[in-house]
C-alpha cells in the first residue's frame, strides 16, 4: 500500500494539474457565443469554448468534493441529512435576499450573501434533526421528514412574500432549486473550484477522525474525540457542498451528488481509502459528463442530467462491481455450484467404488478400472437423473471421466486424482466440524478445495492423524455410512 504521504502527493498533483486547466489560453477574450464560428455542438465536443471548459472543470471539482464528503455521509448512515440540508437552505436564501434588499435595495441577488444564508439555514436544519434525534423520542426518520418539510415550507412561503415585494423579483431565486449549469459563467466557477478544493482538503485532513466516527462513535467518545463536534463538522461540509452545488445541480438534487458516487464506489471496493478515491472519480465523472451533455442540449435541466449520469454509473456499478456487484455475485454463486457439483459427482463415484470394493483405501488401479452407470449413482445424493447426466457430461468435457461404448463411465487419471483429493478434503472438513464445533463455523469454507488455505498445516496434519487407521492408509474413512445400490449398507467404519 502506498504511504499516506505518497497519496497526498498524488492527490495534490492531480488537483494542481486540473486547476492548471483554468489557465489555458482563452480563445480570445470571453466572446458572446453568437460570434463564434463553427457549429455549437462541435465547439462543445472539442472543448474549444473557454466558458464550457471552465464550467466543466468547476462542476467536475464539485462532483469530486461531493463524492468525497458523501462517503462519510454514507458510512455514517445519514445519507438523507444531505437532503435535509438542501431543502433547509431555501428559507436561508429567501431571508438573505430580503435582508440584502432591506439593507441595500437592489443588491438582493448577490451571490456571497445568498450562499451565506443558504449555508446557515442548511446547517440549522441538519442540526435540528440531530438534536431532535438526540434529545427527544422522535425517531430519526420522522425527524428528517418534519424538519425537511418545515424548512422547505417556510422557504416556499418566503419566496411568495418576495414575489409580492414591490421592487424585487424572485425569478432568479427559483433557479437555485433546480440548478442552472447551462447558464453558468466562468466567473461564477472560480468560487466553485476553490470551495470544492477547500472542502476536499478539509475532509481528507480529518480522514481518520471521520472514519472512526462512522465506525464506532462509542469508542471515539471514550477516546476523547468530540463526537458531536465531528458530526457537526461533517454536516458543515455537507452544507458546503450544498451551497456550491445549488448553482449547478440545484438544492433539491444536491443530495444525489453526495450519495450516488459513494454508493456506486461501494460496489467496487471494501477499503475506505479506495472507496474515497472511487467516489471522487465517479463524482467528477458524473458531474463532468452531465455538464457536457447539458451543454450540448441547453434546454434540458442541467442538474437533472448530472444526476442521471451519476445514476447510470450507479446502475453500472450495481451490476458490474467487482466486490458486491450483482453480476459478480451471481457468477461467484454459479462457480461455487458448478464446482460443488463436480466434486460431489467425483466423490460419489469414489465412495461407490469404496463400498463395492469394501476397502478404505482404493488403489489407483481399482479407481481406473471401475465401471459405473449413472443409474447407480442416483441414490447417493439428492440429484435427479437429468442433473446427474449433465454433471457427467461436464466431467467428460473436463477430461475427468471417459465414456465407454456401453454407456458406462470410468475415471481418467486426472479424474481419479481429483476425486481422491476431493474425498480427502471433504472428510477432513467433516471431522474438523465434528471435533471443533465451537471454532469451525468461523473457519469452515464450503469450497473444500481450499482447506489448506484456511486451516494451518499443523491442524491438517492433526486431523489426518486422527482419521488414520493404524495401518497407515492414505485416505480416511467417512464418518458416516455410504449408501450402496448392490449390497446392504456397510457398517459405520470410523477409526
Amino acid at each position: 500500500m502506498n504511504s499516506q504521504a505518497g497519496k497526498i502527493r498524488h492527490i495534490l498533483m492531480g488537483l494542481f494539474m486540473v486547476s492548471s486547466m483554468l489557465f489555458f489560453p482563452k480563445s480570445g477574450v470571453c466572446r458572446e457565443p453568437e460570434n463564434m464560428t463553427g457549429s455549437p455542438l462541435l465547439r462543445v465536443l472539442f472543448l474549444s469554448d473557454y466558458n464550457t471548459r471552465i464550467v466543466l472543470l468547476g462542476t467536475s471539482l464539485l462532483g469530486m468534493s461531493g463524492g468525497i464528503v458523501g462517503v462519510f455521509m454514507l458510512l455514517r448512515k445519514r445519507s438523507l441529512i444531505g437532503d435535509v440540508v438542501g431543502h433547509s437552505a431555501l428559507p436561508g436564501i429567501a431571508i438573505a435576499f430580503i435582508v440584502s434588499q432591506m439593507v441595500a435595495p437592489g443588491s438582493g441577488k448577490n451571490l456571497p450573501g445568498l450562499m451565506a444564508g443558504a449555508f446557515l439555514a442548511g446547517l440549522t436544519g441538519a442540526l435540528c434533526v440531530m438534536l431532535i434525534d438526540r434529545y427527544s423520542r422522535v425517531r430519526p426518520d420522522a425527524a428528517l421528514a418534519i424538519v425537511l418539510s418545515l424548512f422547505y415550507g417556510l422557504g416556499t412561503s418566503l419566496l411568495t412574500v418576495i414575489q409580492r415585494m414591490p421592487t424585487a423579483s424572485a425569478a432568479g431565486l427559483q433557479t437555485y432549486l433546480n440548478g442552472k449549469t447551462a447558464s453558468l459563467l466562468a466567473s461564477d466557477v472560480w468560487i466553485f473550484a476553490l470551495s470544492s478544493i477547500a472542502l476536499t482538503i478539509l475532509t481528507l485532513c480529518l480522514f481518520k477522525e471521520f472514519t472512526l466516527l462512522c465506525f464506532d462513535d462509542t469508542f471515539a467518545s471514550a477516546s476523547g474525540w468530540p463526537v458531536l463536534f465531528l458530526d457537526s463538522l461533517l454536516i458543515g461540509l455537507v452544507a458546503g457542498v450544498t451551497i456550491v452545488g445549488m448553482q449547478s445541480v440545484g438544492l433539491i438534487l444536491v443530495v444525489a451528488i453526495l450519495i450516488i458516487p459513494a454508493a456506486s464506489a461501494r460496489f467496487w471496493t471494501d477499503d475506505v481509502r479506495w472507496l474515497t478515491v472511487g467516489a471522487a472519480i465517479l463524482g467528477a465523472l458524473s458531474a463532468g459528463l452531465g455538464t457536457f451533455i447539458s451543454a450540448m442540449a441547453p434546454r434540458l435541466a442541467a442538474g437533472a442530467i448530472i444526476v442521471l449520469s451519476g445514476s447510470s454509473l450507479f446502475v453500472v456499478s450495481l451490476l458490474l462491481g467487482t466486490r458486491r456487484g450483482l453480476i459478480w455475485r451471481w457468477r461467484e454463486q454459479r462457480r461455487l455450484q458448478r464446482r460443488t457439483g463436480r466434486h460431489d459427482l467425483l466423490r460419489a463415484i469414489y465412495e461407490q467404488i469404496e463400498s463395492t470394493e469394501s476397502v478404505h483405501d482404493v488403489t489407483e488401479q481399482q479407481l481406473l478400472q471401475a465401471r459405473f452407470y449413472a443409474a447407480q449413482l442416483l441414490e447417493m445424493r439428492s440429484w435427479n437423473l437429468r442433473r446427474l447426466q449433465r454433471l457427467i457430461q461436464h466431467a467428460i468435457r473436463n477430461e475427468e471421466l471417459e465414456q465407454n461404448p456401453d454407456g458406462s463411465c470410468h475415471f481418467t487419471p486426472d479424474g481419479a486424482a481429483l476425486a481422491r483429493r476431493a474425498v480427502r478434503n471433504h472428510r477432513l472438513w467433516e471431522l474438523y466440524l465434528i471435533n471443533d464445533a465451537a471454532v469451525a463455523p468461523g473457519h469452515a469454507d464450503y469450497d473444500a478445495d481450499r482447506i489448506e488455505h484456511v486451516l494451518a498445516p499443523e491442524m491438517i496434519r492433526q486431523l489426518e492423524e486422527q482419521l488414520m487407521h493404524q495401518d497407515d492408509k492414505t485416505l480416511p474413512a467417512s464418518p458416516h455410512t455410504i449408501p450402496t445400490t448392490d449390497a446392504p449398507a456397510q457398517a459405520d467404519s470410523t477409526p
Partner: protein
Amino acid sequence: MLHFPACSEYHWGDMSTPAMPEALESSVNSDHPAESPLSIRDLTVAYQRRPVVWDIDYVAPAGRLVAVIGPNGAGKSTLLKASLDLIPRVSGKVRFFGQPYRKVRDQVAYVPQRTSVDWDFPVNALDVAAMGLYRQIGWCRWVTRKYREQALHALERVGMADYAHRQIRQLSGGQQQRVFLARALAQNANLYLMDEPFAGVDAATERAIVSILQDLRTAGKTALVVHHDLQTVSEYFDEVLLLNLRLVASGPTENVFTAENLKRTYGGKLSLLDQVGARIAGS
C-alpha cells in the same frame, strides 16, 4: 429488560456496605485513592425515572482481574459506560487513578461489546487496531508507517497478525473480538474496561483472551471485565463485583463468589445454566 427487584425480594439488610477485605478498608476512607484504577462513589444512572444502576460505591484494586457479573439488565454495561461519561449520570463521582476521566484518558482502554458496531464497514483488521492510536496521532494527521507497525504489533499479541489486511466482515466473531482487544492493547493503558469480551467466541479465542488478561495482570495492569459465564469466574478472575442494579458484593473471588451471594444477586432468577455454574462455584 430492566430488572427492579420486587419489594419482597429486596433485602433491606443489603443497604449496608458490602463486606470488604481488611486490606481495602483503609483505602475506602479516602473516597478516591490514587492507587485505585477506578473508584466509584454514589453512582446512580437512571433512564427517565427508572434506575438502571443504583447507588454504587466501589473501589477497584490495582493489578487484578475483576469480573463484573449479574443477571441481564443488571446494569453491568451501564456501569462501564457511565464511568466513562458515555451516558449521563443522575449522581455520583467516578475517578480513575484519583483523577477525573478526561485527565487520564490515555491510561484507560475501553473494549465495547462486539455487537455495538456494524462490522460491514470498509476497513481491515489493521485499521481497527490502529484506531487505538488515533489519540496519540492527534488531529488532522494521517496514520503513518510507525503507527501501523504499532498496530501490527498489537495484532500479533492477539494472534491476528496474519489477518491484518482482511476486511473485518470476513472475520469470525472470535476474530472480531480479538481485533477489538488489539485496539485496546495498542493504547498501552493501565486499566482495561471490557464489555462481554467472551460473548459468542470460540474456545481458541477464549483461551487467547484469558492469556492476554493474565499477561496484563503480570504487567501490573488492571482489568474490569463484564462476564456472563459463572462457570469460569473462579478460574479466570481474582475478584468479582456482583451487580444487580445495586452492588450486592465485591471482593476476592474465593470470599465473595459464594452461592449465597449469587442467590442474592440473581434474586431467584437464576437460569438453569447459572444454577449449574453456581453449584460448581459453591463446591
